[in-house]
């Protein structure tokens, strides 16, 4: 109950940090989707590229987040505005699930359906937009969903480089050894993660064929 009282007492700050957090997560998920979905489509068609691209995304995923934020800090244009840097780092982390799921989704389309489409004279872009993407949409969006949830979690680390977000409470709480403060960051983050999961799930349901 102490936590609730603390959060209510600091509600404007909780709200600000939550919005900041949402801002970081929203941009990075959006950018990762804008890069990852076309990349996933590309490697599903040019299979020679799939190993290097997926390997690259895998490697990024293995870099500890704190280290990645640290690595990027001295980079000229990025280091100037830490939010930029945080969004870039989060985008990089969000890429793997999006690329992977897009790739799997497109590859998972029944080859007979694609062959029938090609055989009846659909152009490659008609095949992509009328057949492959609609059939892969739920796979692709489940990738976006995972990416959004990962970003909500990782964005708390962005506070370590001063990019704001709910991580501020968590780091402050850790420093003060005060669970109330830690939870004031962790609880809204958990709620955001659930909302992100639910939100993209809702979009998925709307877009799924039938």
């Amino acid at each position: 109950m102490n936590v609730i009282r603390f959060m209510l007492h600091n509600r404007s700050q909780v709200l600000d940090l939550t919005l900041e957090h949402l801002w970081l997560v929203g941009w990075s998920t959006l950018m990762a989707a804008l890069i990852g979905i076309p990349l996933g489509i590309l490697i599903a068609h040019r299979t020679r590229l799939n190993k290097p691209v997926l390997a690259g995304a895998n490697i990024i995923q293995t870099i500890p987040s704190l280290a990645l934020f640290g690595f990027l800090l001295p980079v000229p244009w990025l280091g100037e505005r830490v939010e930029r840097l945080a969004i870039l780092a989060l985008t990089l982390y969000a890429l793997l699930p999006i690329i992977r799921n897009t790739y799997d989704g497109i590859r998972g389309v029944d080859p007979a359906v694609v062959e029938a489409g090609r055989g009846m004279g659909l152009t490659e872009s008609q095949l992509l937009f009328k057949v492959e993407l609609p059939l892969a949409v739920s796979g692709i969006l489940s990738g976006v969903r995972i990416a959004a949830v990962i970003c909500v979690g990782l964005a708390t680390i962005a506070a370590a480089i001063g990019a704001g977000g709910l991580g501020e409470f968590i780091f402050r709480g850790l420093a003060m050894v005060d669970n109330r403060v830690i939870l004031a960051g962790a609880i809204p983050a958990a709620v955001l993660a659930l909302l992100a999961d639910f939100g993209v799930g809702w979009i998925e349901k709307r877009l799924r064929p039938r």
Partner: protein
Amino acid sequence: MIEFRNVSYKVNGVQVLSDLNLHVARGETLVLLGRSGSGKTTTLKLVNRLLSPSSGKILVHGTPQEEIDVIKLRRGIGYVIQEVGLFPHFNVAKNIGLLPKIEDWPEDRIRARVHEMLQLVGLPQDLAARYPHQLSGGQRQRVGVARALAADPAILLMDEPFGALDPLTRDDVQREFLLLQQRLQKTVVFVTHDLREALRLGSRIALMEAGKLVTILSPAEFLKSSDPWASAYVRAFGDGLESAANRGIS
């Protein structure tokens, strides 16, 4: 209508087809008969350029294939495969009407065409709103044929279209195919490994083995042929083949 001139097809150093010469006349049903790996499906896919020959020439309507835009070529050729390949996210009407729609037919003409096609393949109109997974195997195959015919192509390619059906349904769709062919007079290339089906449906049978064309015979000639491959086929399928050849639509 369709002509193969010294066509060979190689993939990864493996000779799949060698030196194929073939002529399909307007309005006939040429059956490509052979076992798995004999090159019959490859031959079919060369016609609509899902594959391109390594050497030789293929003429469609008397024009060398490479001079025709590949999309235009394919839109003039109906294509039916064993797995049917109906679009699972489209209902029956949208499946059948897809090509007309892409070709920018007006909406009411598409609707009339879908109606006509369903009638043609003997399906009730209320099937139009169903999705492929709600159909039986025979219905799906009929929709596949209706879709292939929707844009009124002069040529129809069929790759073991009835192979996955139960014997009774297969008998039905074979009979329907013959009736349809009597009316429409399409130029059909039909792939099968079933001699009975070949005898019943084909105006001529092209027997293939190991990437080569062995012989082309009419069903009646096929049964009497002294060609070792042809007679091996006849022996393997045993008795009652004459009735298959004579049965036709009955």
